Every structure is written in structure tokens, then in C-alpha cells.
């Protein structure tokens, strides 16, 4: 196995891109990443995407994106793992470079969601759940998370407003990220008054439907060591799964897939949770942020919300999360999200996070979750000195 | 003289019975508020309205499950006929009865069919089941009368057109909670109420629905049955007649010589409206819920077009232990959520979006 480094990053602004379609969003991110990496050719391209077929009528994204990126002929495939598609594409790129099958690999996550109506997007996103036993009963993706949040509040005695710090923190950080969808501050009062989507989840608990693309270029770490550029090494890449349907989980509040994925990653990187300087977690909903913090070992069971209430998730806290806005404020173009998370970790580790810079960030973790916790992909990145 | 009775080769009876009435109620004052400015008398106090996820299939399933629960340990695989009478089957083509048969575990060796005869469709299925078991074609047959009745907005029928149903498991007399003493059917071509193909709402003959239709058919059927059985109104503990409103069954009972206390237990129209094919059959479930052994019950349905089925029943000792095995009719009547006209319009699909 070879050490793998991220040698280039690129991203589009997340939002409503009425002028750009799927392939041009991917192209913009991918070209930015290649410029950043100073490469002109790659050996393979992995495209992370969840909903192109359902929402834009386009599948076969590997060849399509390769063609329109001027990479015709390159090895290219689409990778799908629901909302975890982006990190899954990155994971395959990592495997290829680490295993010596490819030297320079491009992983791009892309999603074009805004052409669909609200109910269409709701139906499409629900495909991440169990079609026969959840979706056929009218469950939406929001509703699944609402079931978790309701039970969490019941078991641990939290009130609705206790979840506000997740949203307030994400929006505060998004203010300084030019690529974020939202640049609006959210107050606890605004959170308390937000429109209900699926009780107890309101609009400000939920990440927005958006368009976007992000890309990274991977290469053997040895190629960049000694080049004078900062070396950001992928110290761990771990995938774990759990039952797709919430009702099939041994303990719905445990997010066992996330725990398995995180602890596998800690093992690979040879670190402990305390050594992680920032955590880009999958805050598609506030409850997911709480459960991820617990599963990854940053809070004990039932104390993820407590950690946020204590201010420990902010840029100056014990474990900064959503440092560039997270899924909540940066936006959640589903199949692209996992790559955005890693791009943002690289920004932090390179010291390029501007006003949101976590001081002396050396170890960053990104965790991308597909479905309500069924596919969980964790990457740990370490800046070499 | 050849008897007018529909005779069976062996004695049959009701093994189990069950009702279902939806949770929602539309007060008649709501219809009046929208269509008459609140003026005028209303024929009932309120009517039962099916929720947005209910139809004749779902109503039949719950009523049938209650009937099977009361029957005790009857293996559904021994039911040889599943028949549903309704004027509001959810499909124009595709049987309600196969869905019901599948849901209660009676498939696949079972006769299944849907019956149609306006409000008489349910007793028609019941009478056929009596014949089916009475001839020995099968040990058990299930008959259901259920409707989610629709009325043209603003029509007089809108006060009463209601949703609900009842199911009866028919079997050998020795297992019955009520034995069939005799039954007959009385029909003529009397066009008092109809719905043409592809039409949402029925049309009716107004006042014509009264004398030559409802009163004539029910009275003739009741008299003919009592004459054939040698009974008089005084021999009955209970009587139940089709109830399109409160007044009609009260009037026909008086005409026949029944006292108000004989029809009280089964007269539900004031609180649930007219459940069409379910109407007299739900009246009967309410009677059976409170009946004691060895009591006699007369049931006469009426369906437009037109006809009446009359059935005479006598309860047995078995009724005591079976009454409590499923929710009583009054449990469903007590379960009640009032809705306004707007929600009613949405629930019943009167709003096209």
C-alpha cells in the first residue's frame, strides 16, 4: 500500500445554478481541482452522484463527465451510495492509488437537484430508504430523521430548542465561506419559529436541496513530499454499513454504522478521537449531527446535544464541526457532499480556511452518511510537517 | 301453495358478525350551513364519513375480521364463499371480494364475487350465503354489506349518505349464535334511485322513493315472511329495517305493528346516517351486541330498483360468549371525530386537484 495525498481541490458554489447543468457543474469543480493540483491528465475518474437518473434523466456519468472534461478515453465510472456517493467515489480513488493501480485519480461529486419540484425531490431522496418497507408507507427522508429526533428527545429529555446550536453554528461558519449556499445568520429565536417539515424537524434543522460539485485530485504522497507544497495525506478511509431500514437496526439511536466506520478509521490512522482537530460531519439534519458526534466518540450516548449546548462544536470549541457551514449552511447537493467535506478539511489543514481557520489544524476528519445511517464513509486527513 | 320462502336443505345460522364504522362524523348542520343557509329540518343528526385512506375494501376487511374474531376458531381456509355487496366498490372492474378473501386468509379455494343492488346489496350477499351453506356447497360463507356512499353536493341525500359496513360468517346451525328461521326476497322494477355508468353521483325519484318504493317493498316482504313463518310482530324481540333516515323505518315499523322499543337497538341512522348496503346489517350487529339467547329478530332491507330481503333469526346460547370477542357497534359509534364540510369535501374526493 502506498500513502495517498490530496494534491488538488476544487468546488463550485452551492446553490441554485439555473445556468448550469450537471456536466458543467462537474466540469467546473474538476478543472479547479486539476489546476490546483497542476496536473493535465489523470489515470482514472470516479464520479459520485445519487440522483442524476431520477432528477435529470441522465445516467452513465462516468463516460459523460470524462468526455466533457476533455478526458475522453480515461477509466471512469459513476459511484452511488445515496448521500454517501461523494465519499464513496473518493474511497474508490483512494483504493486505486493506494493499491498502485493508478497514480493520479480524480474524484468528483456532483448533484443537480433544483430542476425538480419540491415533491419530486422529496420522492427522489426517499430512494435512499427501504422502498418496500419505509417509502411505500409514506416515509420521507425528513420523516425518518424526525423519528430518530423524537425518540432521542424522549430518551434523553431534551427540548426542541436544545438543538438550536447546531444550526446557529453551521450558519455562523457559512457566513465566511464564499462557496456556501447561505450567508445568513440564524438566531435561536429564528430556529424556534421555523416552519415544521416533519415534526419535530423544522426547516432550520434540515439541509437544503441544492446544486453543486466538488472535486479532489489524489496521488501518491511521495510525489508531493519535498515539493515545498503542504502534504495532506489520507490517513484513513473506511466504509461501514448498517441496515437500510431504521426499523431493522438493533438500536436506532446508536448509529452503529457510523461508529464502525469511525473506529475503523481511527485504527487505520493510529489516532484517538481526542487528536482530531476538526470534524466535518453529516449534519443533513440536526439530529444526525448529534448522533454522529456520539458514534465517533466525541460525546457519550445522549450527550451530543449537550456538547453543542456547551459550545464545544464551534471553531474555538473542543471539536469544531461544520467549519465551512456544513450540510446545513454550505448546502447539501447530496452526491457531492462527501467530496465537499474533504475539500473543506483540506482547506483547514492547508491553513486556507480564512476567517474560519481552526488554529493549528493538523488532523481533520470527514464523515459522509448515506441514507439514515446505512452507508458511512469516514476519511481522516493529516497534514505532514 | 308453494312457499314464498327461500328454503334451505339444512339449517344454517350466523357463526360470527362484525361491524365497522369510520371515525369521522359530518353533522347535518354542516350540510345545511353550506346549502340552505342553515335553514330547515335535517333527516339525521350526523353521518359517518370514511377517512381519506378508507374505502369499501378496507371497511369490509375490518368488519370481516371482527366477524371471524367472534366466530372463534374457524379456519379461514374453510370459507368457501366471500361476497361483498356495495354500490361503491373501489374498482368498476376488479372484485372487492378477492382483496377481502386474501386479507382474511381465505384464498385460494373460495368462491368470490361482488354484489350490486343499491342498499340491498349486503342482504343479497347474506341471503345467497344462507343458500350456499344451506345447500351444502360449503361449510362457511362470508357475506358483507358495505358502502362509502356518495351524494351530489347539495342534494337531499348529502345529509345522510354515509360510510360503514357489516360482515356475517354464515355456517351450520349447530355452530350458530343466531339461527336463520326463514328468509324471502321481494323485488319489482321500481326506478326510485339509480346511477348510470361513469357517473359520480346517483339520481333519485324524490317523493317517489317513499310510498311505492321503500314502504311498499319493506312492508310486503315483512308481511309475507311473517305469514309464511306463522309469526306476528309480537313474536319478535327486535326488528331492523333499512334506514335511509330516522323517519322511514319508524313509520314502516308502526305500519307493520312494531313498537318503538323493538326497533330502538338497531336504529342508528340518526348517529351514523345511511350506510347503504351496510344500513340494515349494521343495525343487526347493534342488536346482536345486546341480544340474549333465544330472542327473535326480524330484518328487512331495502334497495332501490327495487326490492327487499326479509330474514327472521333466533339467537342461541352461543351468542353470550361471542359478543365480547370483537368491538361492539356502539364502540365504533362512540369513537367519533367531527369534521366540517371542507374536510368532508376533501376526504370524499369531491375536490378535484
Amino acid at each position, binding site marked *: 500500500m502506498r500513502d495517498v495525498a490530496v494534491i488538488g481541490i476544487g468546488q463550485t458554489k452551492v446553490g441554485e445554478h439555473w445556468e448550469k447543468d450537471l456536466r458543467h457543474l462537474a466540469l467546473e469543480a474538476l478543472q479547479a481541482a486539476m489546476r490546483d493540483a497542476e496536473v493535465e491528465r489523470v489515470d482514472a475518474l470516479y464520479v459520485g452522484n445519487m440522483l442524476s437518473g431520477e432528477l435529470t434523466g441522465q445516467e452513465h456519468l462516468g463516460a459523460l463527465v470524462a468526455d466533457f472534461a476533455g478526458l475522453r478515453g480515461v477509466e471512469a465510472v459513476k459511484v452511488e451510495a445515496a448521500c454517501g456517493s461523494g465519499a464513496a467515489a473518493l474511497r474508490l480513488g483512494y483504493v486505486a492509488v493506494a493499491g498502485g493501480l493508478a497514480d493520479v485519480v480524480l474524484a468528483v461529486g456532483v448533484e443537480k437537484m433544483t430542476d425538480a419540484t419540491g415533491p419530486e425531490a422529496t420522492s427522489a431522496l426517499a430512494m435512499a430508504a427501504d422502498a418496500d418497507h419505509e417509502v411505500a408507507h*409514506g416515509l420521507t427522508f425528513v420523516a425518518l430523521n424526525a423519528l430518530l429526533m423524537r425518540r432521542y428527545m424522549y430518551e434523553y429529555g431534551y427540548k426542541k430548542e436544545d438543538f438550536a446550536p447546531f444550526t446557529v453554528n453551521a450558519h455562523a461558519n457559512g457566513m465566511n465561506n464564499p462557496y456556501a449556499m447561505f450567508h445568513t445568520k440564524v438566531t435561536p429565536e429564528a430556529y424556534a419559529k421555523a416552519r415544521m417539515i416533519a415534526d419535530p424537524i423544522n426547516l432550520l434543522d434540515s439541509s437544503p436541496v441544492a446544486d453543486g460539485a466538488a472535486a479532489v485530485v489524489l496521488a501518491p504522497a511521495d510525489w508531493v513530499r519535498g515539493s515545498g507544497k503542504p502534504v495532506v495525506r489520507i490517513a484513513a478511509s473506511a466504509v461501514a454499513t448498517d441496515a437500510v431500514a431504521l426499523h431493522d437496526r438493533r438500536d436506532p439511536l446508536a448509529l452503529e454504522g457510523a461508529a464502525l466506520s469511525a473506529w475503523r478509521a481511527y485504527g487505520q490512522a493510529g489516532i484517538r478521537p481526542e487528536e482530531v482537530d476538526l470534524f466535518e460531519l453529516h449534519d443533513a439534519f440536526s439530529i444526525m449531527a448529534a448522533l454522529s458526534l456520539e458514534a465517533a466518540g466525541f460525546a457519550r450516548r445522549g450527550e451530543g446535544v449537550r456538547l453543542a449546548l456547551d459550545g464545544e462544536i464551534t471553531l474555538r470549541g473542543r471539536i469544531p464541526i461544520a467549519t465551512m457551514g456544513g450540510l446545513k449552511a454550505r448546502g447539501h447537493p447530496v452526491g457531492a457532499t462527501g467530496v465537499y467535506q474533504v475539500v473543506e478539511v483540506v482547506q483547514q489543514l492547508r491553513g486556507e480556511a480564512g476567517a474560519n481557520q481552526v488554529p493549528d489544524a493538523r488532523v481533520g476528519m470527514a464523515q459522509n452518511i448515506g441514507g439514515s445511517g446505512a452507508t458511512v464513509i469516514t476519511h481522516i486527513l493529516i497534514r505532514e510537517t | 301453495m308453494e312457499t314464498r320462502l327461500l328454503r334451505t336443505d339444512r339449517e344454517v345460522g350466523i357463526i360470527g358478525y362484525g361491524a365497522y364504522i369510520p371515525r369521522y362524523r359530518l353533522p347535518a348542520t354542516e350540510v345545511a350551513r353550506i346549502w340552505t343557509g342553515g335553514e330547515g329540518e335535517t333527516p339525521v343528526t350526523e353521518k359517518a364519513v370514511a377517512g381519506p*385512506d378508507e374505502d369499501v375494501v378496507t371497511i369490509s*376487511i*375490518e368488519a370481516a375480521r371482527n366477524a371471524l374474531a367472534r366466530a372463534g376458531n374457524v379456519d379461514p381456509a374453510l370459507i368457501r364463499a366471500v361476497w361483498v355487496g356495495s354500490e361503491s366498490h373501489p374498482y368498476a372492474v376488479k372484485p372487492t371480494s378477492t382483496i377481502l378473501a386474501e386479507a382474511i386468509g381465505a384464498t385460494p379455494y373460495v368462491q368470490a364475487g361482488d354484489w350490486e343492488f343499491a342498499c340491498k346489496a349486503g342482504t343479497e350477499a347474506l341471503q345467497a350465503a344462507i343458500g350456499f351453506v344451506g345447500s351444502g356447497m360449503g361449510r362457511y360463507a362470508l357475506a358483507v354489506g358495505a358502502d362509502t356512499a356518495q351524494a351530489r353536493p347539495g342534494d337531499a341525500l348529502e345529509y345522510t349518505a354515509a360510510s360503514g359496513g357489516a360482515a356475517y360468517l354464515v355456517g351450520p346451525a349447530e355452530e350458530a349464535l343466531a339461527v336463520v328461521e326463514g328468509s324471502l326476497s321481494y323485488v319489482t322494477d321500481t326506478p326510485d334511485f339509480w346511477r348510470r355508468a361513469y357517473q359520480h353521483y346517483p339520481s333519485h325519484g324524490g317523493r317517489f322513493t317513499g310510498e311505492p318504493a321503500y314502504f311498499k317493498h319493506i312492508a310486503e316482504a315483512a308481511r309475507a315472511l311473517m305469514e309464511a313463518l306463522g309469526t306476528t310482530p309480537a313474536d319478535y324481540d327486535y326488528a331492523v329495517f333499512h334506514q335511509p333516515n330516522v323517519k322511514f323505518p319508524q313509520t314502516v315499523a308502526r305500519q307493520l305493528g312494531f313498537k318503538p322499543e323493538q326497533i330502538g337497538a338497531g336504529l342508528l341512522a340518526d348517529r351514523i346516517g345511511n350506510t347503504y348496503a351496510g344500513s340494515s346489517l349494521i343495525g343487526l350487529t347493534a342488536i346482536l351486541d345486546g341480544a340474549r339467547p333465544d330472542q327473535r329478530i326480524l330484518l328487512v332491507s331495502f334497495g332501490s330498483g327495487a326490492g327487499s330481503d326479509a330474514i327472521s333469526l333466533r339467537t342461541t346460547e352461543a351468542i353470550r360468549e361471542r359478543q365480547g370477542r370483537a368491538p361492539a357497534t356502539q364502540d365504533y359509534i362512540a369513537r367519533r371525530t367531527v369534521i366540517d364540510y371542507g374536510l368532508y369535501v376533501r376526504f370524499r374526493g369531491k375536490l378535484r386537484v
Partner: protein
Amino acid sequence: MGLPSKNWRLRNQRYRLVGEICEKCGTPIFPPRDVCPECEGPAQTPYVFSGRGEVYSYSTVYHPPAEFERYAPYTVALVRLEEGPMLTAQLTDVAPEEVYIGMPVEMVTRQLQTEGDEGVIAYGYKFRPLIR
């Protein structure tokens, strides 16, 4: 899209809560999956569940997928069956504010969705507060 055959295939579990029981370790399984989630042995023996259970968690959907707009707002729940397994279903005949965690519920068969005015009607299990 493929609704008739899909619902038909699932009719036993949808209409009557027919799941499975593991012959080896006795675990009742719903929804049926042919492999025991506990001991991972084969489990294909049919087992009919009673239909009684209690609410583990619930939510009310105000923004439904296109196919469910007709029924909105509606309440969904994780229901723990008395035999042990959990399932996901709608609650019916109940106002959202009446629902609570631990509420005893029973299975009823209702319309799950309809394929427009011309397609098939899918029926299946929902749960409601006990009638009595």
C-alpha cells in the same frame, strides 16, 4: 411504475402481517427477509403477527412525496410489535397531538397509495389506537 406486481408480491405481509420465524433460534422476523437477523440462519417459515404493538417513535409529515399528497398531513411511526420486531407504518384514525411514545396500537388494513385515478390501489398495514 410496476405498482401492481410489486404490491402483489408483498400481499401476504402487507395484508396480514405474515412474517417469518427462525426455526433455529425462534426469532420472529418482520418484514420477512428469509435470513435470520439474529443467528443468520435461513428463516422462511411463515409466521403471522398479532398486529398489536406500541409506538416507539412518530412524526407527522407535512411535506409528502408526490404520491402521498392526497393523504397529507399524516403521521408515521416506528411500531414495536408485541412479538419483538419493529416496523415502519402510518398511523391512521388519530390526530397528531393524540400520539405519544408507548401508545398501544393495532394493525388495520388501509389504502397505502393509489396510482392516480386509473391505476391500482395499494392496500397495506397501518396502525391506530385501540378501539376499546
